[in-house]
């Protein structure tokens, strides 16, 4: 890990009229670190993720990102074109529903290759070889490269979405309930895969989940949200093994022990 944080979040709030999305959230994310944001639905975790990933503009507060050139940039002050470029090169966003993050009517190969072509790759053979390599890394058979994601199972679609996001070697990946709609055995494989990729690539990731098991497996650090506020944060093992806030204790004790 290098000596400076990748993302600096300072006092971010988002209000929807008089309703609160999230309030006074501050934290830093370090290179190679995986942060989980947990909480029940309606606790503001997706709002917070949207604010961080510039899909929503925070009502107040500053989100700064450590660019590749070493400068910190306030995301809200970046131009649209620059922000979009950042989003398709240095960042990834994995949606809960793969259909939101994939082009369902073009082939798997083109889905993975799109980002490469968007940043100027113009060699068909290379694009295809990279796409095939990424399919292999996410455990999709190479001969499915010309199939459309419509013909894929839910788990395969989610893995394809991950490949599509990682192909440009981003440094930061946002994931919104990545295992949401999958059955338990597929979830386990996907988590294992994501953990491996995050480790191999040295990615930083922010994962929103309501599933504490996902947080336990993937994240180094976690934040617990309730009613738009971060009520507890710390190392994942510490928070899960020794929760301090009554709400976190409730959350942890409500998991079935198997």
């Amino acid at each position, binding site marked *: 890990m290098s000596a400076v944080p990748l993302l600096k979040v300072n006092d971010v709030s988002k209000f929807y009229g008089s309703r609160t999305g999230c309030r006074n959230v501050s934290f830093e994310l370090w290179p190679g670190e995986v942060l989980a944001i947990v909480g029940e639905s309606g606790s503001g975790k997706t709002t917070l993720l949207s604010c961080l990933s510039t899909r929503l503009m925070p009502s107040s507060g500053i989100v700064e990102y450590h660019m590749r050139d070493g400068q910190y940039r306030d995301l809200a002050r970046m131009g*649209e*074109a620059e922000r*979009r470029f950042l989003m*398709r090169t240095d960042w990834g966003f994995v949606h809960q529903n793969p259909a939101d993050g994939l*082009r369902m009517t*073009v*082939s798997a*190969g*083109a889905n993975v*290759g*799109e*980002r490469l*072509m*968007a*940043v100027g790759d*113009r*060699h*068909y*053979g290379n*694009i*295809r070889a990279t796409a095939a390599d990424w399919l292999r890394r996410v455990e999709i058979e190479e001969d499915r*490269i*010309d199939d459309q994601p419509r013909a894929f199972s839910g788990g395969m679609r989610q893995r394809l979405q991950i490949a599509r996001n990682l192909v440009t070697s981003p440094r930061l990946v946002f994931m919104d309930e990545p295992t949401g709609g999958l059955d338990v055995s597929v979830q386990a494989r996907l988590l294992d895969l994501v953990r491996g990729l995050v480790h191999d690539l040295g990615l930083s990731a922010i994962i929103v989940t309501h599933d504490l098991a996902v947080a336990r497996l993937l994240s180094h650090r976690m934040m617990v949200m309730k009613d738009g506020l971060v009520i507890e944060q710390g190392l994942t093992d510490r928070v899960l093994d020794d929760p301090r806030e009554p709400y976190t204790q409730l959350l942890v004790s409500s998991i079935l022990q198997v």
Partner: protein
Amino acid sequence: MHALEEYGLMHVKLYEDIARNGHIATTYAYPVKVEGRYVMDPSPTPKFDNPKMHMSEALQLFGAGREKRIYAVPPYTEVVSLDFEDHPFEIQHFDKPCALCGAEHVYLDEVVLDDKGGRMFVCSDTDHCEDRREHGHAGHLLAQQEAAE
């Protein structure tokens, strides 16, 4: 799309073409990049004529009525067809000249002559073809016909 210069999707379309057909199968509405900046659809011109747009002396006007849009390419403007390094842009090649007027290097239409597989290739630009015939040019089919008469 234009303001943000997000044209990656155009190449996705060409990629799909190659993946499905082994070559770029788009023959009209073939995307071009104008002056190294704007990607444009020159529909309905066939891609055969795409190279003629490059550095053309003419002011070229395009309209898309249903989309209430009109656009223009100024004279002497760089117009380059999008492609891949290993699948470069190519126009159609015809083995034979026009069957009626014998013109070469023009776009030819295939015309089916009978139900026994007979066919001919003739100029797509019929006015140009007639003009040439009036000036005494004759393709092989016309020559055969005259010989028969």
